[in-house]
């Protein structure tokens, strides 16, 4: 029993639990935005489990492929794969098993839902990680598309079809991703340069990156707010969503006109809290 717990403790960091949790929350919010007020707890649990396995699986495959990069970056060299605590083959097997189980379960629950989960996994592992991440800084667009798949999948599972609101929510996540990733790549620019990974800051400079962050924050906030209204969220929740969006916009603008490391870090953290808060509001507001 102790050995099993030790393995779980060792494997858990491979899933990037906070990132996986955030993406999972978008999937659940997408579902709740469609199915409320009638909740189906078995569907909700199945959705959570299948999405968790698919997202965690693709994250582990990403970490398996990028272990050489992780080992030369200060921020990531202590990760279990990079420092040798987990063997590459072990991680590869775990990533494949979780991915297959996640996509398989999703497909059994609903074919459209399974297809969208599979698309998310394909964009993340094949297009983003294997193909583009080491070639172009624009790979984040594909990372963003894969990041938008859980919310689209959740809503499509709830409705049985893909609708405009689902696409709007996907766009919101897609445009939120640059705020998250680019502030991160600015903070750890030296690390990425050492690893030879092209990033927006190293390709286009800091000013252009900050402008991109500000614009994408505006678009993400507009998309989430519009989706909230179209979903039929109660006005109180829309008001709170508008307040949180205003905070994101102000920080985005501040990062352009008063750029400091503190503002950049604040924007990165706020963007994560904003997405989690927005997903909670979409879930609760549709009740």
């Amino acid at each position, binding site marked *: 029993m102790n050995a099993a717990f030790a393995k779980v403790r060792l494997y858990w960091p491979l899933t990037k639990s906070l990132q996986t949790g955030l993406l999972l929350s978008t999937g659940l919010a997408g579902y709740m935005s469609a199915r409320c007020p009638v909740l189906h707890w078995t569907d909700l649990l199945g959705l959570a489990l299948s999405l968790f396995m698919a997202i965690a699986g693709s994250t582990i495959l990403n970490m398996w492929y990028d272990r050489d990069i992780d080992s030369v970056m200060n921020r990531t060299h202590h990760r279990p794969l990079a420092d040798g605590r987990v063997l590459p083959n072990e991680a590869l097997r775990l990533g494949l098993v979780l991915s297959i189980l996640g996509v398989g379960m999703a497909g059994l629950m609903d074919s459209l839902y399974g297809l969208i989960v599979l698309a998310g996994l394909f964009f993340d592992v094949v297009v983003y990680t294997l193909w583009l991440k080491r070639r172009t800084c624009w790979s984040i667009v594909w990372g963003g598309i894969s990041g938008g798949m859980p919310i689209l999948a959740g809503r499509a599972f709830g409705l049985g079809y893909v609708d405009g609101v689902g696409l709007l929510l996907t766009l919101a996540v897609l445009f939120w991703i640059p705020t998250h990733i680019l502030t991160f790549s600015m903070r750890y620019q030296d690390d990425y340069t050492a690893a030879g990974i092209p990033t927006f800051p190293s390709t286009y400079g800091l000013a252009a990156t900050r402008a991109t962050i500000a614009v994408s924050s505006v678009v993400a906030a507009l998309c989430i707010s519009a989706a909230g209204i179209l979903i039929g969220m109660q006005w109180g*929740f829309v*008001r709170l969503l508008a*307040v949180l969006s205003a905070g994101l916009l102000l920080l985005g603008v501040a990062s352009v006109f008063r750029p400091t490391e*503190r503002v950049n870090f*604040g924007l990165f953290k706020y963007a994560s809290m904003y997405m989690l808060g927005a997903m909670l509001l979409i879930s609760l507001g549709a009740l």
Partner: protein
Amino acid sequence: MRIAILDRILLLVMCLAAGYQIITGVEGLAPVPMIVYTVGFGVLLVAGLLLIILGFEALDSPVVIVVSTVIPLSLSLGLVWEHCSACRTPYLVFVIVGFLTVLATRLLPLRNRLPVLVLAVVHGIAGLTIFVLPVLLSATGRARPGFGLVGVGGALIGVGGLLLALLKAGKPLVSRAIILKILPGLLLLMTAAFVAGFALE
């Protein structure tokens, strides 16, 4: 001074209370009070989140003085709009002129006492309005007794605003360490008083 876990928890509870007020507390009001209360509690919420994320160093930003003016101005405007219809237009003019003057005295490189004076007048009038109006309405029976709690919130916002403003002006009443120690608790008490007061209106 590093922000402690307890401070972060107090600020998080404060943010939740402000969020609750935005969602349910202003429902059914006329458009102007609804908007200005949303702005007031919204600024409080976002400021709380930034303090949680960035720590007390966030208070070093020059924007803090202008942003902290928005809270009493918006809340007092909402109260006046709801409960003193004869004063609506003059008070709206005061709020707009007051905010723009605070903004201008912060943007312009003035080396005299005008910025502090403007800040004291604007904060003073807005804070007194939030303190006096609910207490007066409760005392005269024109509002339920619980509404007087909004006045308590007004008093607390006055204390907090004064401490922060004088600290930023370089003439603190008490040390920075003491102010930062009591600030999260003060913000939570203030927000709780507002939320409870408006609920008992």
